[in-house]
């Protein structure tokens, strides 16, 4: 038997094999399932960690991850934290105010699920919006993320002070009705948001890949989370959302996420096609 010639560069096939082994190992040892994440961005995030740790192969990272839970914890942050901002896509929040809020007013009680809420910027954005629309007292926001650490961060309501100028502009463009600075005080560590904004928010750890539905909702927000999933996993999560929405419930996706590539297109009608707000119709 002859062995194939050793590749002269880091071959794509070996790389993929190593990444698949790493993800399988993480799943079997720690229960986190990244096996159906979109490959290109996952690979980028992995290599960032590999280089930052002074390693040169995926296998070297695997050895560390499997033998050291702290390395896993850090990698979980690398792979699962989604960078976000308050009122990211102001036009979405404006559309939500103008088109979704009137529908929600007709309900005695409104349950929202913010899936993949990360560090909470968009949870606060929505709480403020509902407060200004007079809906917050009869609303409850279930804010979930795979990652306990980001939830802890979200609960503090502290965000970098240097971002407030940017957020204020977005708040205004999103149709904000007051002065944005009413909602926070500038502290030593950053902008500390009024935590009474969280009085109707329930934070909970939830894994979209492996966990089930836990209630029926009138609104599900999942923006720029599923872009990290491959098509098959996106489809599965769409199934989870579909079965978690009440009839005529609303599904809000990121502005460049299309329901067209899933098996659920005909279960929804667009409430705002540009801003990707859909209404369950069957």
């Amino acid at each position, binding site marked *: 038997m002859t062995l194939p010639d050793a590749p002269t560069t880091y071959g*794509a096939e070996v790389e993929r094999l190593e990444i698949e082994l790493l993800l399988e190992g993480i799943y079997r040892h720690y229960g986190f399932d990244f096996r159906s994440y*979109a490959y290109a*961005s996952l690979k*980028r*995030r992995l290599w960032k960690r590999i280089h930052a740790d002074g390693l040169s192969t995926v296998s070297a990272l695997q050895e560390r991850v499997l033998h050291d839970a702290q390395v896993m914890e850090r990698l979980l942050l690398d792979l699962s934290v989604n960078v976000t901002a308050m009122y990211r896509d102001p036009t979405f929040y404006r559309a939500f105010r103008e088109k979704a809020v009137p529908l929600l007013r007709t309900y005695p009680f409104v349950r929202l699920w913010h899936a993949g809420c990360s560090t909470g910027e968009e949870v606060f954005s929505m709480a403020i919006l509902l407060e200004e629309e007079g809906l917050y007292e009869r609303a409850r926001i279930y804010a979930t993320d795979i990652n306990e650490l980001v939830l802890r961060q979200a609960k503090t309501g502290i965000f970098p002070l240097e971002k407030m100028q940017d957020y204020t502009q977005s708040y205004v463009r999103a149709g904000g009705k007051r002065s944005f600075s009413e909602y926070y005080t500038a502290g030593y560590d950053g902008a500390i948001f009024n935590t009474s904004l969280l009085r109707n928010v329930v934070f909970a750890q939830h894994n979209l890949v492996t966990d089930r539905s836990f209630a029926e909702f009138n609104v599900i927000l999942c923006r720029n989370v*599923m*872009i990290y999933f491959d098509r098959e996993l996106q489809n599965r999560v769409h199934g989870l959302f579909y079965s978690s929405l009440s009839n005529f419930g609303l599904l809000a996706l990121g502005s460049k*996420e299309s329901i067209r*590539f899933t098996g659920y297109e005909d279960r929804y009608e667009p409430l705002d096609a540009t801003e990707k707000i859909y209404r369950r119709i069957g």
Partner: protein
Amino acid sequence: MEPALVVVGASAGGLRALQLLVAGLSTDWPMALAIVQHRSRESQALCELLQDVSALPVTEVNDKEEIAVGQVYLAPPDYHLLVEDEHFFSLSVDAPERWSRPSIDVLFESAADAFGDRAVGVVLTGANSDGAGGLRRIVDQGGQAVVQDPATAEVRVMPEAARRAVPEACVLPLEAIPGHLANLRGRNRVPCVGGLR
């Protein structure tokens, strides 16, 4: 024929260069074209400005959109655009790279990995060095590189950086790039005619 992909990066001064480039492609062009143009996250007009001069349909990419030949794809503002194994695009909101989102390197590197010798990278005018590393990767994986002749660039920093990183790139004056791209057929190599090397 297997599909092939041309990826283009442009920054400062890019609008005029991109318009000239897409205007030179006809509807029977057998490739797909993906563009990263650095711009502010509010910028929405670019797609229309390119469509105005293009015979090919120009769209901003939706996540997991399939890559089809004869199409011009534009990275949406405030997202990275990546190429998944040969068939479709994906988007990410990972942190900016070299202060840019979308980043040219992110597109180029993922295109190099997914398309190998069927990827062609084009670096146009700009005031930073984004794209140089990605263009290097495209060539290392067997693909082809085109760089706008810095003398014809509104801002020469970016093509100069790309040229330093990829000395074997075909350096062409802006006016010659559409013709060069129009001759591309899959992985077939197009001679660098009218270039600086």
